[in-house]
């Protein structure tokens, strides 16, 4: 008489062979029921356990009742928006709070219409797509770094406090900052954008050829706007530059 396990194995094997006869079956396919459904169930179970243990051990915060008369210092946005709040150090609210999120959303949605290659789809292709992945990875990393700084290193009056420093310690206000005069700032900005379009085209002519004009302009615009962020941050951190361009309507 066969052992129970042996019977199962045989059944399993013949079932696997028959999968190819299923309506959507291809050689090497497996049946969704039970295999995928079981893994999904296990994943959901594991997730539930993690969430349950977390919820049993850590209480959700609840401070004093809301009081418009007492301002929290620092008043922090929810952690997923703290990265944008951190950018308020470097940009005016209309850029950090409105233009940036809009551009991030539009930029993300534009990705598949700018990178239309149909190579390397559906598997981890980090080596074959170094260029695309390094830009995206940089953006993704910057997003999390800004969140980490805003969430863990910012204290009262949005000063930097290291984790071992007490928030009661008074920090000196920042040193004086200066703006580029318009006759410096405007040409610099124009040069940045014009150069940004011309230089890649001169250096890597195949880029424009492969992408076409519209996709080239779209990609370069998004890239220039994105790299403008770390550049402005460095200008501020290294040289105390507050604005690159000052006009009577808005400052950048």
């Amino acid at each position, binding site marked *: 008489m066969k052992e129970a396990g042996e019977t199962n194995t045989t059944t399993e094997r013949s079932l696997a062979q028959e999968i190819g006869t299923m309506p959507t*079956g291809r050689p090497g396919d497996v*049946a969704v029921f039970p295999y995928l459904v079981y893994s999904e169930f296990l994943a959901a179970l594991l997730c539930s356990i993690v969430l349950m243990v977390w919820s049993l051990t850590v209480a959700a915060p609840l401070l004093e009742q*809301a009081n*418009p008369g007492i301002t*929290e210092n620092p008043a922090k946005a929810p952690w997923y928006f703290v990265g944008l709040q951190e950018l308020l150090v470097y940009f005016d609210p209309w850029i950090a709070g409105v233009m940036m999120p809009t551009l991030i959303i539009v930029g993300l949605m534009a990705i598949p219409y700018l990178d239309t290659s149909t190579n390397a789809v*559906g598997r981890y292709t980090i080596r074959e797509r170094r260029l695309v*992945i390094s830009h995206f990875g940089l953006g993704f990393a910057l997003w999390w770094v800004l969140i980490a700084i805003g969430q863990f290193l910012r204290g009262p009056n949005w000063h930097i406090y290291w984790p071992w420093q007490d928030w009661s310690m008074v920090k000196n206000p920042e040193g004086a900052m200066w703006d580029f005069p318009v006759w410096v700032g405007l040409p610099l900005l124009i040069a940045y954008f014009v150069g940004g379009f011309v230089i890649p085209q001169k250096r890597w002519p195949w880029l424009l050829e492969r992408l076409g004009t519209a996709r080239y302009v779209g990609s370069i615009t998004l890239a220039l706007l994105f790299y403008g962020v770390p550049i402005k941050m460095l200008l501020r951190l290294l040289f105390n530059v507050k604005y690159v361009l000052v006009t009577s309507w808005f400052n950048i």
Partner: protein
Amino acid sequence: MASSRTDQFRRKAVDWITTSQLYRSVFRHGYADTVRNRALEVTSNAFLHLHPITIPAHALKVRFTFCLGGLTFFLFLVETVTGVLLMFYYRPVPEYAYADMKTLQYAVYFGMILRNLHRWGAHLMVVLVMLHMLRVFLTGSYRPPREFNWVLGVNLLVLTLLLSFTGYLLPWDQLAFWAVTVGTNMAAATPFLGAEGPFHGLLGVNGMNDARFLLLGDVRVAGSALLRFYVLHCVALPLVAGVLMVVHFWRVRKDGGISRPL
């Protein structure tokens, strides 16, 4: 001998149940483990028929997708269930909101764990949806023919953030109040449409008719903001997210199935 008798009894019992009218009215497939039944278990089940009948073996590998999209959806369900339960104890008016949080914490059985599950589940969902996006990017799965599903995914990411942000105000404590004050102040900085944004004068925009007023129903975070955020959080945004999820999952199937080399 005894085991075979138990076996016989078990088989009879299973037969009796699985051939009954009641069983067959619920499950539209046979009980025996056959290829036909495995297919029917998926296609004749309202919830499972989201899936194809078969998938490529490599798609089963946990390290390929890390189940990130599926778990995001699972957390949406967790948020829905815990959220509905929380609604029984919560009134979205400044006079009661904070007191209801305290009641939930100290007087309702399992109230604290309910709130913790809802809050930490929301944080986890935000993290997972971002990691899901990273996984889809790294596997090049936004490339044609899946480009529109990527767009839907970005919209769902934004909706997840908005759902989380609107929920953030509801406890009506200092943390909630000032976080939402900081967040909604950004709307006032919108060019043209915000009272403090560049060029707001061109359209005659002021504090009483700008983008922040639209969000808050007031010039500051107060009762009408709490009600607006509550309705958005519990009704409007989940409905939109639900519809987009239906399309998102359907398009996974239509655009070539679960991520794999095409």
